């Protein structure tokens, strides 16, 4: 009889409360350590997760008081899904930030998506009027 292979998962629901994104990074650090990811990759995952979570907190105008975060270990790849139940957004309408424009603008913020894309191996956005899921992955090697 062959044993059924189980995909390890961690599911986290965090309330939309300032700094609660740090609760998510504590979990990602444990998962990354379990997978044997380098400290550099673990730190990149934590930073991307902070940005995805605060985006969900700040921009979703969520009807729910929570953000859901799923960590799935698929072999040597960590997949993280950050889901809010807010109004959704059109990624094509989000400008790519650059420092020269920001230095002359009153709006210095808006770096979250850029950071997530730079720090993770893959990033996908699925957004409807019922919410947004950001799916990002990081390979061990």
């Amino acid at each position, binding site marked *: 009889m062959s044993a059924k292979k189980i995909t390890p998962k961690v599911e986290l629901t965090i309330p939309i409360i*300032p*700094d609660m*994104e*740090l609760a998510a*990074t504590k979990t990602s650090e444990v998962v990354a350590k379990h997978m044997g990811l380098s400290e*550099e990759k673990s*730190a*990149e995952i*934590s*930073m991307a997760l*902070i*940005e995805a979570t*605060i985006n969900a907190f700040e921009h979703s105008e969520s009807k729910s008081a929570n953000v859901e975060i799923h960590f799935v270990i698929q072999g040597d790849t960590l997949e993280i899904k950050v889901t809010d139940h807010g109004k959704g957004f059109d990624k094509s309408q989000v400008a790519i*930030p*650059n*420092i*020269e424009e*920001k*230095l*002359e603008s009153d709006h*210095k*913020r808006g*770096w*979250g998506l*850029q*950071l997530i894309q*730079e*720090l993770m191996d893959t990033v996908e956005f699925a957004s409807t009027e019922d919410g947004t899921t950001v799916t990002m992955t990081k390979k061990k090697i």
Partner: protein
Amino acid sequence: MSDFNTETRTEGDIVIIKTSGYLNNVGGEQVSEVCYKEMDAGKKLFLLDLEDSKVVNSIGVSILIEIIEKLQDVDGRLGYYNLAPIVEKTFNIMGLTKYSTVFQSEEEALEGMS
């Protein structure tokens, strides 16, 4: 609620601000308050010692962009040292390192800012 603190000292004309805690919007505002108060007193050269701020977010770092902008108006400069690798990487991605300087140590920073 995160605890964020700053300690400020001067070395000649250079104001050194040592931070501790999560550099988010709250932390960024605290740093900017210190900088603007010192700028009102005529200071133009600032160093941030980020040894005890190993976690940042883009909102906190955006406030540093605001500080850089205000320093440009008075021909001032901003530098940093003791950065965690991910913080330096974040500064690179956001372009801060084009308009401010990352140093590897306090000694190098003081020499570089003089």
